[in-house]
């Protein structure tokens, strides 16, 4: 059964079409990678899934419910940057994930007393698991890029979303850290069976992590006016079971990339 249903989405900014005729059905627990040329509208598609914007035409629904009007707790998100709150400590960021949407006791959306201690305990447990316990009291600015993204993912998951949206979450990380993050994300997925959409510029990453890989591209191309048409999903690869037959292609088995994939040593 389709969990996320995208039906006939069009999105234009002004008169300029960005996306056209996007249709998609995703089952619960699927990991969908999204790739495509720069500027083709991947982030736009993610913003639509997030309900940060509403499409010019068409609709997106989760579990058959009416389309969301604004971002809500069903959708967790991690961007490439600015995904954690710089004015809160690492632990504070995780506690805030509960506080912000929690029921308010007084005037401030903040926990006090026993409630805060409970939340802090859960936060510390999560930090232990993602290997950030030793920096719990530091501010994000003093963390490395990989640590910040781990915190951002943990924070998004602390909100218990139905769908997790990742926009180039590892785009700014070095290759070693990236591999560690892949392992981290795969572990989390195995635990939560969350539905994930991930935009990536790295094909290998997209196929490694994804159950499906969607390619966004313009089906029609006007050489005189390249902006006349929008992009849509032009390929929808099955990337499970090692991506057979797709990943049997030589590029996935070159010695270097194979060696890299086995190299799961965290270098964060």
């Amino acid at each position, binding site marked *: 059964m389709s969990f996320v249903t995208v039906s006939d989405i069009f999105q234009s900014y002004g008169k300029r079409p960005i996306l056209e005729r996007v249709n998609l059905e995703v089952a619960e627990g699927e990991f969908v990678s999204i790739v495509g040329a720069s500027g083709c509208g991947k982030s736009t598609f993610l913003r639509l899934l997030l309900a940060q914007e509403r499409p010019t035409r068409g609709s997106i629904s989760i579990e058959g419910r009416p389309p969301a009007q*604004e971002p809500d707790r069903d959708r967790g998100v991690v961007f490439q940057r*600015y995904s954690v709150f710089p004015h809160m400590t690492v632990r504070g960021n995780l506690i805030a994930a509960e506080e912000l949407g929690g029921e308010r006791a007084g005037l401030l959306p903040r926990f006090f007393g026993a409630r805060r201690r409970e939340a802090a305990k859960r936060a510390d447990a999560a930090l232990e698991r993602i290997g950030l316990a030793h920096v719990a009291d530091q501010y994000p600015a003093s963390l490395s890029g990989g640590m910040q993204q781990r915190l951002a993912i943990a924070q998004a998951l602390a909100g218990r979303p139905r769908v997790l949206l990742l926009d180039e979450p590892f785009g700014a990380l070095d290759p070693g850290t990236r591999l560690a993050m892949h392992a981290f994300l795969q572990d989390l997925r195995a635990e939560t069976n969350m539905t994930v959409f991930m935009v990536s510029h790295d094909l290998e990453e997209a196929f490694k992590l994804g159950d499906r890989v969607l390619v966004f591209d313009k089906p029609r191309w006007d050489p005189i006016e390249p902006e006349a048409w929008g992009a849509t999903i032009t390929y929808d690869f099955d990337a499970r079971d090692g991506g057979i037959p797709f990943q049997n292609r030589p590029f996935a088995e070159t010695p270097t990339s194979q060696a890299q994939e086995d190299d799961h040593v965290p270098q964060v």
Partner: protein
Amino acid sequence: MRWINRRPGRLVAFGLAALPFALAVLGYVIASDLRRAANPADKLLPAPAQILDTALSLATEADRRSGDVLLWLDTSASLIRLAEGALISASMGLVFGLLIGLIPGIRTTLAPFVSVISLIPPLAILPILFIVFGLGEVSKVALIAIGIAPVLIRDIAQRTAEIPEEMIVKAQTLGASTWAIITRVALPQVLPRLIGALRLSLGPAWLFLIAAEAIASTEGLGYRIFLVRRYFAMDVIIPYVIWITLLAFLMDLGLRQLHRRAFPWAGPAT
């Protein structure tokens, strides 16, 4: 070595920084000496010793007529006005800045209005304030508030709008309401900016304070300076100006310390 690459050592740096001050003092002493050599009764550039003398008596001796020690009377009157004006402006800056920066409906309603208000030269409406609020404290505090609040509001609104969209969206996906976003995400992030903006506004605030005191007041630092101007009492004016400068410096220093202590995550204040 190129000049742009020559860095003075610690001691030299200190000496270089002190040099202009020393030269200014020296220049004054020489000019004062020359004038008094020509005319021993000269009042324009009194001797440093006389300035010190007057300053000391201003700070320690009660005035013959009122029985108050003038310097402290003036200082407390001025600082209270300044603090009230700054407090009111800062609160308005925070409240309206956050609302304008975050809520489109309020931005559409208020942003153009605030922009226009901020173009009014505050001193031009000082007479209106005197007419409306009388010659008491209210009009002076109001002048300071009207003078710096629009700037603070615009600055905070700008800073609020500059908070990355990603962060606001992230908060929403965690279930945050508008109130939660204002109080937990936006407010803490603009508070350090408020201190920075306030530091920049203190200069204008002093200007408006002294202007208001000069025109209608019975005590205050600005009042005293303009009062004794009639008697060419440079030995009073000069210590007062130095004292005002020192106060302004200490306030700036205090705000900078506050920034550093209260917002360790925000990096050093500039």
